[in-house]
């Protein structure tokens, strides 16, 4: 009896309450978001790329109809991000749903003005997931978001995969919401974002003679932030060096000129790289010793010399190359932008907590003066499948 009564009560309550529910097909599933500065400096323009499931996933027994385009991109403006998003509802027939968003693209201009509200909005909302990628772009974010890519049907998905398999080139940090929030909330370490750029790379199938008529999205480079404001870019080589500090790098290539032929190159593929930072407490300004070791393989060679003959030379060149990259990165971080994006402060804190407490309030001023020594070694362990090489007759 009791069981029945309770059951009836539950049934009545549940049917009365009818908490607002929307089926999955009544949602506009967002797959990418672009954030630009609006028409006035205080406003923000949000571009969303919405998936049209019926066209993105082909026929499933139901007539799909419509334009046949897999995505639908719309724009709205508002004073805050949330207002802009609510304004989308004026013309979106379905509720804009963010949970499946792959990527947030921020325009450089907007980023330079500060992204604190953006971070707050996207981490406050339970609907959003924390492994959404974040990237900055010098192009209009709206354009980046609505660019159709060749291989994937949904562009957001394409960028997602670009990030995921980016480790092959290792030229941009893989910053997702969790990491961005973590480094933003950390007082002494500053956030970095990946750089996305539109480049004319694609070749149209219909007009192959017009090379580069299609724009493609390229992931390479890094945007540097000071707290929430963007301060500038890092180039490809600097980004590679940065990745050594903040991520695990197990891939990438370096091209090194042959020892015997000045116009021919040997290509080395990085198999693993590891970096250790040793802080040294000395007076008011700490110094650091950076120790990098790389393991590389010879993957392409136009040189005359055999693998064995070149080995020492290539190892040395590779070591120097990495050292140069790190030096260039340090120059940018310490001299140009004056922000600690390398987590050096954290490393120092871990090792010397009491010393750190003394200097941490002045870290911003101390960091540019910090002395950093670099020791870079490389090890060439294999020439992949071959061991000898055909002698090319000189001349």
């Amino acid at each position, binding site marked *: 009896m009791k069981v029945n009564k309770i059951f009836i009560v539950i049934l009545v309550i549940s049917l009365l309450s009818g*908490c607002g529910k929307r089926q999955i097909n009544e949602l506009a599933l967002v797959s990418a978001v672009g954030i630009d500065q609006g028409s006035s400096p205080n406003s923000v323009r949000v571009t969303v790329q919405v998936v049209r499931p019926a066209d993105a996933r082909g026929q499933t027994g139901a007539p799909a109809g419509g334009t046949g385009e897999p995505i639908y991109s719309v724009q709205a403006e508002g004073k805050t991000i949330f207002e802009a998003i609510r304004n989308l509802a004026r013309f979106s027939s379905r509720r804009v749903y963010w949970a499946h968003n792959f990527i947030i693209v921020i325009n450089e201009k907007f980023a330079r003005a500060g992204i604190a509200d953006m971070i707050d909005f996207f*981490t406050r909302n339970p609907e959003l997931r*924390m*492994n959404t990628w974040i990237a900055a772009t010098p192009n209009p974010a709206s354009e980046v978001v609505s660019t159709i890519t060749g291989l994937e049907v949904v562009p957001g998905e394409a960028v997602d995969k670009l990030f995921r398999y980016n480790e092959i080139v290792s030229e941009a940090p893989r910053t997702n919401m969790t990491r961005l929030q973590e480094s933003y*909330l950390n007082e002494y370490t500053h956030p970095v974002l990946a750089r996305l750029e539109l480049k004319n790379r694609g070749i149209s199938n219909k007009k192959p003679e017009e090379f580069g008529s299609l724009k493609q999205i390229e992931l390479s480079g890094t945007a540097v932030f000071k707290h929430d404001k963007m301060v500038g870019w890092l180039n490809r080589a600097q980004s590679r060096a940065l990745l050594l500090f903040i991520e695990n790098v197990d891939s990438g290539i370096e091209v090194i000129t042959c020892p015997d032929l000045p116009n021919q190159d040997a290509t080395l593929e990085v198999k693993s790289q590891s970096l250790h930072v040793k802080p040294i407490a000395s007076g008011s300004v700490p110094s650091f010793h950076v120790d990098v070791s790389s393991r590389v393989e010879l993957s392409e060679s136009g040189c005359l010399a055999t693998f064995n003959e070149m080995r020492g030379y290539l190892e040395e060149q590779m070591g120097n190359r990495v050292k140069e990259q790190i030096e260039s990165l340090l120059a940018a971080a310490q001299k140009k932008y004056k922000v600690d994006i390398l987590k050096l402060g954290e490393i120092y*804190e871990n090792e010397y*907590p009491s010393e750190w407490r003394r200097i941490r309030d002045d870290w911003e001023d101390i960091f540019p003066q910090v002395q950093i020594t670099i020791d870079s070694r490389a090890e060439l362990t294999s020439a992949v499948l071959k061991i000898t090489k055909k002698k090319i007759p000189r001349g």
Partner: protein
Amino acid sequence: MKVKITNGMFVALIMTIIYAKAIGVTQGSLAREIGHDMWIATILGTLQGIVMMILTAAILQKLPDQNFIGFAEALLGKWAGKIVAFVIFLFFLFSFGPIMVTFIYHFKDYFLPEAPIYLFIVVALIVGIFGGFHGLEVMARMALVGAFAVVCLNILLLTGSLSEFDIHNLRPVMEKGFIQTSWASRHYDTDWALATVMAGMILPMVKQSEKWVKAGWSGMILTCIAITMWPILEAAVLSAPVTAEYIVSCMHLARGAHIGIFLHRYELIMIALFSTSSLIQIMMSLYCSAHALSKIFGVKDYRPMLIPAGLALGAFGYWLVLDHLRAISFTEKEWPLISLPIAFLLPIILWTFGKLFRRKLSRS
């Protein structure tokens, strides 16, 4: 037939009744106070909890058929029993606030933001009364299932977030100093207070009174092991400042967990497992407060008292949860002030009186 549960079930009850709030809400409060040393505070809290649990078990071993209320009654007469019953009722009444904070902020804020709060209260009360009505034995069996769920949840979370583990975030240890860290452990103390006061109510229904002490401390240690994983992961994966930002920080950790590319989010499964612990908290506080009420009004059976107890607890929970800020400030400020004196002083006072009236005790 008198209901008896085994010591293993008692351990499972301790584990499930502490777990739900300790991993989420408590860790956020700890992070706001002492940063990444949350896990140390949790362990320090456990040490205090073990002492109080052993004391509780030792007191009740003197009169193995009586709970705290019966013990006070046997020593100091009927009115003392009623006062203790009232104190215990108050404890569980206020405990329902943080319990509801845990339950509702997990479910509502992360999964059903549009559902009205009263729905959660009503459903929780229905389940709680349904479970309380079936009695301790069923709840204890449920706790076994709950303990299994806790283990599953821990494994799921571990597999999903270990890839982002960053040991740097945990160092340096004891940044804020020992005193502040141990002072912060009061937040975890409020969690185990639920377990010790519960033990004071249900221990007489546990078999083999000579094993109570061992079951008590081993339960506390197992709970500590199950819980400490969370602050360590929260600090290492999320970092302390991020943990401190959130009311329910464990959900934030769970939200980031993912297995491979396909299963990019599975906090739904985790929260389903988590809910066993949370619902057992609800059932248990209803059951214990109904027991205390029945002693206050001198009713033989506690079952009819489930309804008034449920209404009182539900009303308080609803009022508290309605306002996020009020809920968190109550959980962090007022709740330790209410729960800790009861959790510490009640066993100590009873123990002292037990010493004083030793002769009376041996006679009864």
